């Protein structure tokens, strides 16, 4: 089990193996470990409490700013369930937006892209609205599913995902076109 704690690290409980990208095992030395989430630890991938020094802030639950989060962390949502159309959509979008350029946050990217003539302020505002709507809808759908599964809520969520995909897909095509 992996739990992101509010303003703190990821805690990993239960049987796990920690390896580096060559496959070599990283000795965790204990049964429960804290993995760095703020990026400032001096013993990465482990947490060393540096989040207190940097006043790192992050919620424990999934963030609403999913697109910005995916871009900023370079696609950390890649492991989300494949049948989640929302996650798949913003992964595709994040991937397209990333292209061959360096990792920059969505916020840092917008002005630079505007300079290059790619997504203008209108589409950015639309994204923001869409994100907010999707966040609320996801929460609503989740609550409804827990209390009394409601097909209409689920349908609405799927419709929003489709709308989101269409808009983001168009934006991604625009971005690619401008770069080429």
């Amino acid at each position, binding site marked *: 089990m992996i739990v992101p*704690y*509010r303003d703190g690290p990821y805690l990993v409980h239960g049987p796990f193996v920690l390896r580096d990208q060559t496959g070599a095992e990283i000795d965790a030395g204990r*049964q429960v470990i804290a993995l760095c989430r703020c990026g400032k630890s001096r013993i990465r991938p*482990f*947490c*060393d*409490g*540096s989040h*207190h020094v940097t*006043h790192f802030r992050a919620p424990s639950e999934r963030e609403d700013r999913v697109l910005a989060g995916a871009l900023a962390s370079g696609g950390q949502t890649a492991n989300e369930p494949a049948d989640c159309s929302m996650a798949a959509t913003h992964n595709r979008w994040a991937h397209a937006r990333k292209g061959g350029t360096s990792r920059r946050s969505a916020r840092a990217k917008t002005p630079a892209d505007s300079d290059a003539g790619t997504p203008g302020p209108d589409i950015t505002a639309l994204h923001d609205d869409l994100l907010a709507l999707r966040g609320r809808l996801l929460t609503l759908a989740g609550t409804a599913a827990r209390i009394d599964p409601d097909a209409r809520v689920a349908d609405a969520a799927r419709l929003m995902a489709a709308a989101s995909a269409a808009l983001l897909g168009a934006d991604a095509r625009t971005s690619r076109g401008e770069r080429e």
Partner: protein
Amino acid sequence: MTVSQPRVDDRLVVLPPPRGPWTEAVLALLTGEADDPTLVTPARNDVLADDDFQMALYLCYELHYAALEGVDDRLEWDPSVLTLRASLEERFETELRLLAGSDDLGQAADGLSVGEELQRLVREDDGPPLSRYVETSASLDQVLEHVVHRSAYQLKEADPHSWAIPRLTGSPKAALVEIQADEYGGGRPERMHSTLFANTMRGLGLDDRYGAYIDRLPGVTLATVNFVSWLGLHRRLRGALTGHLAIFEMTSSVPNRRYGNALRRLGFGPDVTGFYDEHVEADAVHETVAAWDLADGLAASNPALAADVLFGARALLALEARWGHHLLAAWRRKESSLLRPL
């Protein structure tokens, strides 16, 4: 009275000489010279930094942790000793609650959970820069003094918090046991944190026997240990004990990295820095479990305990700040921070 002989592997504390009327009263009971508790109430202020008062309370608590040389083990539950201890605790609690303040009422007003309040307390803490000074500037003698001060707690690290285990239930209990298991080495006695601290002491040429330095410890140091013993021994204070543990762990990783750096700066190797290096990593785990699963979880399941969780947190920060100021002030004056230099 028959005096039981402790086994060689027991902790054995040699009784220190009296420091004033409070320790005289306790020592008289412990050595059998008196069997009625003399309730001492000298007109002294600030018992939280009083060398005599804190040693008297410390000795009462040591009965629960260790064998005291020449003292009947049965005095641990002797009504006279407990009566005297209760009178000391009453005064201790009064001053602690004054020191900690009572802005816990703000908790409901600003709508923060206990976990968020604990984070805020750490964020806004303006304690003295002790670990930064030790990391960059402390002399070897000062580092040794720092270790000797801490030995009063670190050689029994985690023990007072274990007293809360039977007093908790459900998730908070599971969280506490998870932390304690790691504190005690996760099944490997050589990894037990108190053992790692003893290694550090030996590596520095210090006496690592339990209680070897208590006679040199000032009240301001003993108060930090008495505080957690007091919380651990009273079920009614279990909320404050979880707040204490949360803050203790939340303010541990970064300072311990600095203390390890201080020892590296002075040329010591991993055998000596091991205790501090282990705490950087371990306490990053513990703080998270302690703040959220233990303290926040306990307050969520029993809201009546929320204020006491925060009392434990605030009082610890305040006591630690006083202790840190004491060390830095003594060192600034080019003096020893102990009652007698090493």
